[in-house]
């Protein structure tokens, strides 16, 4: 029975691999002697929404930072949108153009206005005309519901507003994939909702999303799959319903128990 299940899993995995927009195979990474990622296999389909959770230090952030080469992997293979990530700078640039990222601490550029934050990359990377870039930026600022803040500086906005700007800034590059690295962890509780609402609406439009988050409500609502990591490994991959109601692994059970307390 177990063998049959395994065979089915492998077949499903193979099908997934063929249409995957992100593919990690046997990825490993070390900080000095310490191994942070161990043999990570993951395939993400176009339009799929994946939530990555796990205890701190489990390698979740490192894994998604490897996908746009903010961290370098030392073993295995990462292919994003058909391009392999290696030391070829042209490949890295191509991938970064197509992969948007939202950070825990927003990382907006404090010396630029909100509008300039949003137009910087379209102008300098996509070589758009300033007026066109501004049109695109205003479109996305309207989508995250803060067009009226366009001429302010990041320091004048609340945390929630800053994070929504960060999402708009990433969307201005018209990415195929969005990575979220604990986007709500640095926010006051009352600001979490406004950011999550933005992410939910993005998910509903079919964006391929990989979110490191502990917002389990969000995971239930939008995730196609939940990935649980521990000690640099993917311990469990499951549907949100199965993961929350009937986790397979003891480590996931313990994590969920601690999260609910």
């Amino acid at each position, binding site marked *: 029975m177990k063998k049959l299940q395994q065979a089915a899993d492998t077949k499903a995995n193979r099908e997934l691999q063929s249409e995957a927009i992100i593919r990690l195979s046997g990825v490993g990474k070390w900080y000095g002697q310490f191994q942070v990622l161990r043999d990570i296999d993951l395939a993400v389909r176009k339009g799929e929404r994946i939530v990555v959770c796990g205890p701190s230090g489990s390698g979740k952030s490192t894994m998604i930072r490897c996908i746009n080469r903010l961290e370098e992997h030392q073993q295995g293979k990462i292919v994003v949108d058909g391009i392999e990530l290696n030391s070829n700078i042209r490949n890295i640039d191509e991938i*970064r153009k197509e992969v948007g990222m939202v950070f825990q601490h927003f990382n907006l550029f404090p010396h*630029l206005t909100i509008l300039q934050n949003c137009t*910087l990359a379209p102008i300098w990377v996509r070589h758009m005309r300033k007026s066109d870039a501004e049109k695109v930026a205003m479109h996305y600022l309207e989508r995250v519901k803060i067009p009226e803040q366009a001429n302010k500086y990041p320091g004048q906005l609340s945390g929630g507003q800053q994070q929504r700007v960060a999402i708009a800034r990433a969307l201005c590059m018209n990415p195929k994939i969005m990575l979220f690295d604990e986007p709500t962890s640095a926010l006051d509780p009352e600001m979490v909702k406004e950011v999550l609402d933005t992410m939910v609406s993005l998910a509903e439009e079919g964006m391929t999303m990989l979110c490191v988050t502990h917002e389990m409500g969000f995971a239930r609502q939008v995730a196609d799959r939940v990935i649980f990591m521990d000690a640099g490994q993917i311990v469990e991959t499951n549907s949100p319903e199965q993961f929350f109601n009937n986790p397979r692994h003891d480590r996931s059970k313990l994590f969920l128990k601690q999260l609910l307390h």
Partner: protein
Amino acid sequence: MLYSFEFGDVIEAWPALVSGAANTLWLSAVSVLLGVVVAASGATAKTLGSRAVRFLVDCYIELIRNTPFLVQVFLIFFGLPAIGLKMSPNVAAVTAMVVNFAAYGIEIIRAGIESIPKGQIDAGKALGLGPFKIFRLVVFKPALQAVYPALTSQMILLMLNSSICSAIAATELTAVAGDIQSRTFRSFEVYSVVTAMYFGLSIFFWCVFAAVNSMLFKAGPRGAAR
């Protein structure tokens, strides 16, 4: 112990003092502008350059910071003509001030660059910007803002140090003062007035720096957004 002040000679020499102060002002202003350009280029080279480039910049910084300014002035004015580079006292003074200021300026700006949180660079990379664009568009201005007070202090110091250039007869304020006191022997009066004039020049420079600060760095303190 009673000393009676006699300002008559100083008042008589007032036009010369004013022209000396004006010379100090423009020698310093030119040196500050050129110095900032050289310092910014040096800091850029030290951040983005190859190992060899960084080593050369380090050598320059250490050489200048560990030798007296007066000796540097003499080397440029008296030494360089030996290899065919002859300069007027004022040009030699500006050259010496630029070379001296830039060494300190590089280190100050580099400190600013290092103070930029790594997250800013990550954000630039994630948006697809290359290292040079990240440096120019993301790092440089906030770095300059972070060290602006230190940089302007160094600029004031440069203006005050211009007095040392009187040793090569650059026509700046201290040289003019020396001239007047050697004619009139009214040292106390002359140097009291010159002290007040340097103080006035410093206040003028601070006002200019404050205006530039509010013009360049509109975003205010950068603590709010990491």
